[in-house]
Each structure stands twice: as structure tokens, then as C-alpha cells.
């Protein structure tokens, strides 16, 4: 089994198994036909109803679902990358949610209160969000590197600090938009049109610049990790910190840098949400894309492109999930599928052992004249 296969196959099988388990759940509680039709609805809701479109349906039937899927995929890609990048340097970033909250707030403020032409306004808001996310992540980074505070604990706690400060105070207090007339507005002020991420497929679809931006981020992170000196150093620090130190690599700087980058990516996710679809920091950030990022990174095997791929798959499922309700199936099934996939992918070593046994049995069919190849189990 090639190294690439070993990396990809467990994730693919886990997603398929999760799909099967959830199909079975619907089939058992309702019936098989409903389960199949619900899955089809989910698919049409995610990638568009191509059969209908090709039969002469309107373009909207395809563009709108694709736009929704791409939007969700963009957010999941960025938070997934956030977790994956930290993981590459050996840190487990549970704090993408908190970093995303600060990024979203920074984007909302710059978007609403700075007046600039669009070509500058969008980049400035994005940069502000990245910086805010990076700063929040760096608190955990500095605590880890200077004081040895475990990053899992600190990032979890910082998530709650972020929720308390932003959602429970700033957004409903000092930064709350001034109510116009009697209408009650939650959240911060509307961003200016110049700060909106441009829509790419016209008004019928919410697909905006956020999607290509997320893909570019994934590509950029991959190139950085695999092709640059500093990316190589970052991986070395993550895999064997003591050897990296002995080789003269500035381990603290690399770890701190990766953690800041992780925060910046999560912050960008917040910006894409605010500048792309929400138009302001809403009363509460709502969907926990930051936590989903953990699942996306793990299903993507902590590989930047793997995370992007996993994000695309679950973006489609999530966008289509609401359409399952047409058949009376609850819309939370995509999340359930994601949860199961995460559970199964956590057993990566079990998958590999099963696959290897299969392969060995296949090889054992011709009489064993080849010499024994024994793979030492990783302990």
C-alpha cells in the first residue's frame, strides 16, 4: 500500500461508512425508500439538481445550491486549515471558534466604520480579521511556550472568554448598532457595500470571493509546508522537537508562528462569514464552524489539501441538509454524518490494520516464495 493511499483511504472509507450508518438510521426509523430519497434531496441541495437543470430547469436550481455549499465549504476549509496548521507543529488548536469570533468582529468593525474604496476595503478588513485571530491564538501560544500551559486547556477556555466578551457584552453592549426607529437590531452595524465580498455568480447565488480565497489559503499552506525552508522547519518541530532544536531550528519561533497562523486562518473564516453573507457581526456567531474545523482537519488527515477536500464534501452535505426536511427527515443529519465520520477516522490505525490484513491475504494466495516482509507495528 502506497504512502498516499495509506493517508487518504481511511478518511474516504470513514465518510462512506458514516453515510451508510446514517442511511441505515433513517431506513430503520422510517423506511429505505425515504432514506434514499432524503439522501438524493441532500445531494441536490448541495450540488444542484442537475437532472432537472438539464431537463430545461432554471439555472438558479443549480447555482443557488452550489453557492450555499461553496460558502459553507469556504468556512470549513479555513477553520479546518487552522486546526491542521497548529497540528503540524504539534499543537492541538481547539480554539478556532474563539479566534473566528474575534476575526468576525474585527472584520465587522473595519467593514462598518472605515471608509475606503472596495479594492482596499476588503483586503483591509480581511487583514484586520487575520490579525485579530492571530492575536487571540497567540495568547495560547505564548502561554504554552513561556509557561508550558497545555494548549488544549488554554484554547478551550479562551473560546469561552471570546464568547463572553464578544457575544455577551460587546455586541449587545458598546458595539451594538444604534436602533433605527422601532426596529430592534441585534449585532453590530451593517458593513459598507465597499467591504462586501464580491458575489461571483450574480445575485441568484451566494457564492462569493470567500470560496476562492479559502482554496488559495489551502494551496498556500500546502506550498508553505512542503516547499519552503520555514515550512520544513515547522514540520520538523512538530514531529521531533528535540531533534529540531539540536539542528539549530528556532523551535519556539516556529511553534509560535504556526499557532499565530492558525489563529489568522480562523480569523479569516470569521471575516468570510461577516463580509460574505452576514453583513454584520450578528447577535451571536451561531454555527460553530470553529469546532467543525477540528473534525474537518482530522478527516482531512491534517493535510491542507485534505482539509479542503473534507470541507468541500461536508459543505455539500450541509448545504443540502435543509432539503431533507421536505421528507420529514431532520436537517441535523449532515452534522451527524460528520460526527460519525470523525469517530471512524479516529480509528485510522484500525482501518490500516484491516486493509493490510486484506492485502496480506490477497498476497498469500500464491504460495509464499517471496521473503517475509514484516512491518514493525508503530508503538
Amino acid at each position, binding site marked *: 500500500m502506497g504512502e498516499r493511499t495509506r493517508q487518504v483511504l481511511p478518511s474516504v472509507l470513514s465518510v462512506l461508512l458514516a453515510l451508510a450508518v446514517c442511511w441505515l438510521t433513517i431506513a430503520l426509523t422510517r423506511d429505505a425508500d425515504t432514506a434514499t430519497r432524503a439522501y438524493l434531496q441532500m445531494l441536490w441541495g448541495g450540488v444542484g439538481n442537475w437532472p432537472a437543470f438539464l431537463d430545461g430547469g432554471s439555472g438558479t436550481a443549480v447555482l443557488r445550491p452550489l453557492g450555499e455549499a461553496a460558502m459553507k465549504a469556504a468556512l470549513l476549509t479555513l477553520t479546518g486549515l487552522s486546526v491542521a496548521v497548529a497540528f503540524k507543529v504539534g499543537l492541538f488548536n481547539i480554539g478556532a471558534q474563539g479566534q473566528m469570533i474575534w476575526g468576525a468582529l474585527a472584520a465587522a468593525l473595519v467593514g462598518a466604520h472605515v471608509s475606503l474604496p472596495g479594492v482596499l476595503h476588503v483586503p483591509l478588513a480581511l487583514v484586520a480579521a487575520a490579525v485579530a485571530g492571530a492575536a487571540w491564538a497567540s495568547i495560547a501560544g505564548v502561554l504554552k511556550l513561556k509557561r508550558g500551559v497545555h494548549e488544549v486547556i488554554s484554547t478551550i477556555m479562551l473560546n469561552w472568554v471570546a464568547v463572553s466578551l464578544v457575544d455577551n457584552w460587546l455586541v449587545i453592549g458598546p458595539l451594538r448598532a444604534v436602533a433605527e426607529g422601532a426596529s430592534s437590531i441585534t449585532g453590530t452595524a451593517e458593513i459598507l457595500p465597499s467591504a462586501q465580498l464580491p458575489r461571483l455568480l450574480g445575485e441568484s447565488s451566494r457564492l462569493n470571493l470567500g470560496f476562492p480565497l479559502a482554496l488559495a489559503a489551502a494551496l498556500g499552506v500546502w506550498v508553505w509546508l512542503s516547499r519552503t525552508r520555514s515550512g520544513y522547519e515547522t514540520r*520538523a518541530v512538530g514531529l521531533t522537537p528535540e*531533534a529540531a*532544536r*539540536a*539542528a*539549530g531550528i528556532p523551535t519556539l519561533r516556529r511553534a509560535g508562528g504556526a499557532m499565530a497562523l492558525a489563529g489568522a486562518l480562523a480569523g479569516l473564516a470569521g471575516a468570510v462569514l461577516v463580509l460574505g453573507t452576514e453583513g454584520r457581526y450578528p447577535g451571536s456567531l451561531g454555527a460553530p464552524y470553529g469546532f467543525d474545523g477540528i473534525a474537518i482537519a482530522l478527516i482531512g488527515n491534517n493535510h491542507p489539501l485534505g482539509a479542503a477536500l473534507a470541507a468541500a464534501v461536508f459543505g455539500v452535505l450541509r448545504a443540502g441538509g435543509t432539503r431533507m426536511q421536505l421528507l420529514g427527515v431532520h436537517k441535523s443529519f449532515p452534522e451527524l454524518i460528520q460526527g460519525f465520520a470523525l469517530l471512524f477516522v479516529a480509528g485510522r490505525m484500525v482501518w490500516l490494520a484491516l486493509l493490510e490484513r486484506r492485502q496480506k491475504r490477497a498476497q498469500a494466495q500464491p504460495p509464499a516464495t517471496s*521473503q517475509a516482509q514484516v512491518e514493525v507495528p508503530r508503538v
Partner: protein
Amino acid sequence: MSLEDASLDIRTGELLAVVGENGAGKSSLMNVLYGLYHPDAGTFQMDGKPVRFKSPRDAIAKGIGMVHQHFMLVPTLTVAENVVLGREPTKRGLLDLDRACDEVAATAKRFGFQLDPRARVDTLTVGSQQKVEIVKALHRGAQVLILDEPTAVLTPQESDELSQVMRGLVAQGRTVVLISHKLKEVLGVADRVAVMRRGRTVAEVRPSETTVSELAALMVGEGSRGAAMTGVPVTAGAVASTGLSGTGTTGAMETRPPAPSSIGASQEAATGPVVLEAKDLRATGENGRPALQGVSLTVRAGEIVGIAGVDGNGQRELAEVLTGLRKLEGGEGTLLGGPLAGLTPALAKARGVGHVPEDRLARAVVKAMTVEENVALGRHRQPPFARGPWVDFKGRRERTDQLLATYDVRPPDPTVALQALSGGNQQKVVVARELDADPKLLVVVQPTRGLDIGAVAQVHARLREAKARGAGVVMVSLDLEEVLALSDRVYVLYEGRVTGHFAREHLDERELGRRMLGAEGSHG
């Protein structure tokens, strides 16, 4: 790691040694016996009946115990807790620790071990931890005890003690299988010796009917007999009399370019400039206790300076100070033109310090990375490994291919993960990388620990080559024979102080031994 038509018979109540080079299949064969690996073909019988072990559990049930080279102990648990782990005595469903201690103490006493069952394992010396492993196996009723390279981690004294332990076990009717490639030691303790080469058992001899050189030849194979013998640091005398054979080739070294002819002249006084001058060095060890308590030493270009001593007397910390890995807390020194204080690993590298550390997997390599990525480690910011901020894939591949060929690394594939290589080949990669940087001061710690004869000879030749090229070499080794064979001068460390300093012509094994145990003497 593979086995090809390997046969072995083990007789009750004997001490059988299995010798062979790294990758010869010793460990694979033992792992088959222990149920870790499953043979593709062949049979396995115990007491005349065919058996098949699905897992080590089956092997343990049949009375086979194994002591691995890397201990399988939980460091934060006590001796007794470790020994009973998996079959704990209970009282009303709860762990009965008192009974566990009593049981373990009884087992230890029965086989003549001195162990405190209530001591935490991480407070024990390596030698004592190994005893815990042996007691663990015996406690589970092991009749056949397999010891995998047990002396690789032991001091000479501990090795002697282990030999007595093994003989004692045999005297009590147990069977001991010893895997080793320390031939002298094997001949001193074993009843029978099985030799493995390339996955096969090629010979079976009695110690009384063979010699170290004959065994070495069997291990390496015909055709390279002479070279194998000269490469083995059998005794100081033997090595000296073979003219410090840098030019010898074994099967494993055929592609190596001939070494410069000046290498043999190690007796010449070092006349090169001083590369390291250190006075009164002080540093704290891992355990918080003072490890260096005023060490002074001088190293010149073109000499090998051996650091001898019993394990844990400050040698490791000295090497760490010289490579910038440990903070200097007192004393001063000049290393390659700069101060020793405030040295960092990056600074040391920049000044031209090469480092072959003791714990390869923790410090020298990133085992999950490829061979070529490991070759670049430490020099990854400069050509041919980088171009600007980018990794130079082409340059890195070319240099790696070249080094793998020169140092005869097998397999010569730059793209496999380093952990797929055998220990000897991993070490070759490390040595190749460090020497390729053309260091002015080379700090090596236990450079041949756990390596087979071919690899040992090659590493030794390389160290002499570095010296011939004008590098100052500081070699820390627990293997006295290695120190005697290679060093131009030797410092003896005892409890963080220099207790002896000998020039090569005044080297005397007995006197070294006395100083290693703390006997005072005037500094040579």
C-alpha cells in the same frame, strides 16, 4: 527486516547466544518466537509438539519471556506495580499492593536480584530497570528468557553483573537466549552460539571451539574475512597491531573511497591549532543535580579526544554543553574562536561543530521524515538544500544520492521514511550528514552503540577520516575498547570531574578503569 530459511533449536537449561549483524534477522527471529511476527512458511515446535503463537500472550502462556532492548516499563509506577502489571493480585476487586510487593520480592530473592519492590522505576539506573524487566518475565513463569541486546545500554560493571545473572538463571534450570553482537562478551558467557546472516542461520558453534575473529568472519560472510577482523575493536592491542585499519573494507564498505594514507598515524602528537579550550566547566544535569563540577579540557585540530567514564558521570552533559544544547553555568571556554558561554545549537553549527548524539531517534533525526529530509536537517537553510526561502528538491536529492552511495546506506532510497531503515543504516545517515558539513569540531556520543560489526568499522573509519581532514573530535563512549582504539588522548570523567588525562602512549586499561571508579591521580 526479513527471515529466509532460518532454523534454530533451543535446548532446555542452556545459554544460547544468537549473533549477527544489524538486519541479519536476529530480532525478527526472536519476534517470531515471541508471537509478535508470524512466519510465512516453516514450522515451530516446543517439546516436540508443533505450536503456533497468535500473539505474545500465547508465548507467555507457554513460558517464553522477552526482555526488549527498549524497556517496556511504566516509569511512574513502582517496581512491583510494573512486574504484576496485567496480572495484578486483588483483594475484594481492588489491587492488593502489599501482596504484589511480597510476591515480587519473593521472585527477586529466588533468583538473586536485589530490587526494592516499592521503588519507582524512573528513579532506578538503566541496569536496575533491566533487572525489573527480567524479574517481570520470570514472575510470569518464563522458562525461556529472550534478551535482545541487553548490554547495549549497560556499563561494563552492569554487563558483568548481567552475565552472572544469566548464568544463575541457567543454573536454576531456565533457558536463556541472548541476542548480541558483542562477540567477546558472548564467548565469555554462552554455552552455544548461533550465527545469523541475511535472514539465515549460517553456523552454530561452541565458544570453546571458536574465536572472536572466526565468529566475526561468519557474521560478515566469506570474502571479507580479513577486513571484518581488523575492524572489530576486540582489544586495544589487537586494533593497534592492525595499524588502525582505516583502509580495510568489509562487504558493507566496498563503495567507500579509499581513506587517506595518513590516517594510520594516530600516534603522532596532535600539532593542530586549538579548537576547544575549556576551563572549569559547570552545568546541571537533567535530574537537577550538578553534572559538571569543574571540567577543563583542550582539543586540537586533527586529534581524537576520548571521554571515558561510567555512564552518568557527566559525559552526556559535557557533549551537550559543547553543542549548545545545555546551558553553561560556570567556567569559561573558547570554542572555534568564540566564547563557549551563551552557545546555542545554531551558533555551534555556524562555527563548525558537528554532532552525532547518543539518542539518535530523539535528537539526531526526525524519524517520520524521509531520508533526504533528514540529510538536510541542520543544513536546510543553505545550498544545496535550499535556494532562497525554498527547499531545493533537486540539489537535496543529488547530494543525498551521493551520500547514500558513499556511505553505503541500504536501501539507497532517499524517499523512504528514515524509520524504515535499520539502526545501523540510520546511524550511517547521521554520520554522513555531520561529516558532509566538514566540521571543525566533531562531538560524537556513543557513536557505535547498538551497531553491528560492519557499521562499527565504518563509523570508526569515518571518525579517523574526519581527524585526518583536520577536525578535532571529541568522542564520548562507554565502550572502553572503543575509547582505547580510537583516542589520541583520553580524559576520564568521574562525578563531573576529570579524574584522569592520558596521552595515547600512556594509555593503560587498568589505570583507566581505576580512574573511572574515582581513584585520584595526578593529571597527565
